[in-house]
């Protein structure tokens, strides 16, 4: 890895980390409902630099984010880890299999969807063990995932377009 790449990954990871920490301060009607703003950075990284940097940025964000917020190796950490990895990996797979088919909006929606699926699966396997509880939560998560996924995707699209227009590389 070139040192310039390391520098970029560090910058992008710190943006993601800042958004991750910021959104932890925003109150939501349900405690574990998060906006997933750091996914904007993941999508941007994926579009500009590809799969490996996107996964690296996600991992740095999850591990450092949980250390900063004090949730490292707690229940929330494993939910965050499974969701973050599943979201990023699913976006990478779709980008590789269908290059150019989806813009940031579609990619972000796919990421949000698999993020939620992985989190529910982790919650079921590790904590809840009650399929009814998972079924009750699923529709709310699906709606929330669609709304936040669409919002983040549109935000990522505008950011990517601005970056391209101004010829600045993050």
């Amino acid at each position, binding site marked *: 890895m070139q040192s310039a790449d390391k520098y970029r990954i560090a910058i992008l990871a710190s943006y993601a980390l800042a958004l991750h920490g910021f959104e932890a301060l925003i109150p939501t009607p349900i*405690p*574990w409902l998060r906006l997933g703003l750091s996914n904007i950075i993941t999508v941007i990284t994926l*579009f*500009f630099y590809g799969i490996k940097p996107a996964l690296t940025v996600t991992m740095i964000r999850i591990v450092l984010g949980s250390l900063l917020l004090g*949730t490292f190796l*707690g*229940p*929330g*950490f494993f*939910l965050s880890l499974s969701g973050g990895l599943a979201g990023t990996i699913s976006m990478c797979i779709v980008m590789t299999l*269908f290059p*150019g*088919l*989806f*813009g*940031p*909006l*579609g990619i972000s*929606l*796919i990421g949000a*969807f698999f993020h939620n699926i992985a989190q529910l699966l982790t919650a079921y396997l590790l*904590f*809840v*063990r*009650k*399929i*009814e509880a998972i*079924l*009750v939560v*699923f*529709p709310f998560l*699906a*709606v929330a*995932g*669609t709304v936040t*996924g*669409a919002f983040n*995707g*549109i935000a990522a*699209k505008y950011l*990517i*377009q601005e970056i*391209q227009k101004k010829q600045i590389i993050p």
Partner: protein
Amino acid sequence: MSIIKTTRADKVLLLICIFLSLYSFAYVKEAMPKGTEVRIEVDGKLKYTFPLNEDRTVEFNGVIGTATVEIKGGKVRMTEAPCPNKVCIHQGWIENGAIICLPNKVVVTISRPDHSKGPDAISG
């Protein structure tokens, strides 16, 4: 790198996501495991437990008078009650949830037989 924009596939995917997430509310309601047991409580004490899939009519004494509960085809209703406003009777057939007659202190619930004593929720 080419100019990034919102593609037609994005819009189609967004519509699919909106539709599926709204549809999942209806789907989950159908897929939920249903209660199998009718429990009749009078004045806070469990009086009868009947399986929901056997049709029967039960007459029993409440606090102020005789009440009649009918179980038929997986549904339950209160057919007779001594209370003045008959809210419990007007509720009609229920498939889940409860019928509560306050004046007579009768509570009819449809529930599942297992009452596992796990934690209500774990938050992170």
